[in-house]
């Protein structure tokens, strides 16, 4: 019986293992220590690692994110939690001008081995200010890396890669997934003795032959559900490609899949305008135009600020039904 682990527990294991491996790793953020994490992602780590390694910060994102960036220049490896990625806005100058640019502006004399992480998702009834998904904005900046795991297995392996990376990594989780469980083997079940997934490697989550559904983060789960419906009710075989990291991007896996199925839809919980799907759709048509039997389509959250009203919020984000409908329009 494979081991089942929740997304939050998988992340916690990644932190625990990296804290043990490298004494320069320190976890910081609002309520990450004594409170055990607003979403319990860091539960138990303060008890185990103490004040030096697990640090509660005041509500002061510009200050403590900037502080982490400064400490990373000196070789500390901070893993900074934003309680919600939505709060990136108040730390934006630090993230963009300092974390992402300082290496370049110093002619390569400095690097910032920092991870900034937290949930970035809508769909939880908290209104527009707490429902931002800024992965497309972050990925727009050369110098930053951007990771969006869709499940516990990837979350653990990618987090370990993010912490060991010597560039700033923006790691985007989902409160909707924290409690969900997946098969996550323990280290002694793994040939390398640990779960480590390099950044920049996409993963085919479901094989298919008629259409490729490409996605990142929780939209991958939506696509897998849609693929089941397409198969069961319409006899359509959908392949699901989880890009896992937006930057660096594994284009080969996407192109190989689309060259096989000849149809593609990008699904994301982000807004459509200048979204990740825009970049990927552009890349597909400019690279393998002749392989396409239909236009590359996109499905995003509906293009308005995140609405509060629960029944409407549920339809503002992509649903399996919408994905099925759109797939049928080109299959």
């Amino acid at each position, binding site marked *: 019986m494979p081991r089942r682990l929740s997304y939050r527990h998988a992340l916690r294991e990644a932190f625990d293992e990296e804290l043990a491996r490298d004494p320069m790793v320190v976890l910081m953020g609002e309520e990450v220590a004594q409170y055990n994490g607003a979403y319990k992602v860091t539960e138990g780590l303060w008890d185990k690692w103490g004040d030096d390694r697990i640090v509660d910060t005041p509500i002061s994102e510009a*200050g403590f994110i900037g502080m982490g960036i*400064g400490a990373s*220049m000196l070789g500390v490896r901070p893993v900074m939690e934003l309680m919600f990625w939505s709060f990136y806005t108040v730390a934006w100058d630090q993230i963009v001008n300092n974390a992402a640019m300082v290496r370049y*502006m*110093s002619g390569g004399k400095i*690097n910032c081995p920092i991870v900034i992480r937290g949930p970035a998702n809508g769909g939880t009834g908290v209104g527009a200010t707490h429902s931002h998904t800024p992965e497309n904005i972050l990925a727009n900046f050369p110098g930053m890396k951007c990771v969006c795991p869709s499940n516990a297995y990837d979350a653990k392996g990618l987090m370990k890669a993010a912490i060991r990376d010597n560039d700033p990594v923006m790691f985007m989780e989902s409160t909707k997934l924290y409690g969900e469980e997946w098969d996550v083997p323990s280290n002694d079940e793994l040939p390398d003795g640990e779960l480590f997934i390099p950044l920049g490697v996409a993963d085919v989550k479901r094989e298919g032959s008629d259409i490729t559904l490409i996605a990142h983060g929780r939209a991958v789960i939506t696509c897998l559900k849609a693929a089941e419906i397409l198969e069961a009710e319409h006899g359509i075989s959908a392949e699901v490609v989880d890009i896992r990291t937006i930057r660096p991007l594994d*284009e080969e896996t996407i192109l190989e899949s689309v060259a096989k199925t000849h149809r593609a839809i990008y699904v994301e919980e982000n807004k459509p305008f200048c979204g990740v799907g825009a970049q990927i759709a552009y890349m597909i048509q400019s690279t393998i135009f002749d392989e396409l039997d239909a236009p590359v389509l996109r499905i995003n959250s509906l293009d308005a600020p995140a609405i509060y009203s629960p029944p409407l919020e549920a339809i503002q984000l992509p649903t399996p039904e919408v994905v099925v409908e759109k797939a049928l329009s080109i299959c």
Partner: protein
Amino acid sequence: MAKATSSAPPAGSHAAAPINQSLTPDDKIGLYRLMSRIRRFEQVSLQHYQGGKMAGFLHLYIGQESVAVGTISLLGENDHVITAYRDHAHALAVGMGMDECMAELFGKATGCSKGKGGSMHYFEPSKNYWGGHGIVAGQTPLGLGLAYGLKFKKLKGAALCYLGDGAVNQGAFHESLNLAALWSLPVIYIIENNGYSMGTSQSRSSAYPSCLAERAAGYDMDWELFSGEDIYEVRARTQVAIERAHTLSRPAVLEIATYRWEGHSVADANKEKYRTKEEVERFKNEHDPIQRWRRVLIEEGIASEEDLKKIDKEAQKEAEASGDFAKASPYPTPESIFEDVYWEVDNKTDAGQTGRHFFND
């Protein structure tokens, strides 16, 4: 109105401070040489700017030399420096060369940031110099992070984080003060108060009780206000904060009154409108920190007029030579646009070669 020396204690009292008593005649001449070099560097860079050799902004430090030189002269192995965009003096004070600094202004490959940063973005981590930051107060959390790193690594050191008087109204600075005091981090914020945030005087931009540094009191933090004109005073009073940072890991805010002779930047079209000619002349004639130090060296019998003139001439020659070096240097290659973006890519690691990092079509 910028504060000058009216509140300064009687001359000589700071000369007696142990940290100044420990200065050898050579050390004192070295301080003069450094201030002279900074001024000549700035003057020569201005000429080249006006000659169309560089782009963008050029924020000159002329008139403020004693602040960077005096404070940085106190630093040891584990002390660090970070500042804002008026950053040339700090770079020379930590020991960076004029050549690489001038070449950076020209956008040349031999520049200290390979021509990628420009005037506002000088860096030299090997000399504990962490920039050179363009966004007002953006460097203040980074300075805090350097102090955090020192404490985390259990090193006895301090981070000197410089900012202008216009930076004190940014939120990031206040967040940094709170964290510095809350966690007792060895960061010393040095407000180089030249009286004007660009064209807006202190009285038109800031609300404060007696001075800007006093805001630190709200964070239960040590603070000081003093004149930057006398390098003895700068050293004596900054040393107190450094010792406190080293031994007690306590932060501080120091406000050092100074004056910039030039505009906010060379592109400051209103530099003669927001302050009077008389004010500028008064500071040039009566409060020039280099002239003041010159008088001290002569009064103490350490150097003659001729000795100091010789130093000035050498500094001028060095600055002009750095201009020649910059002119003769090559521009960076187009390929270098994609270097120094990602550490992993530059170092050709597995991580740097997995997935696409750049999107140019």
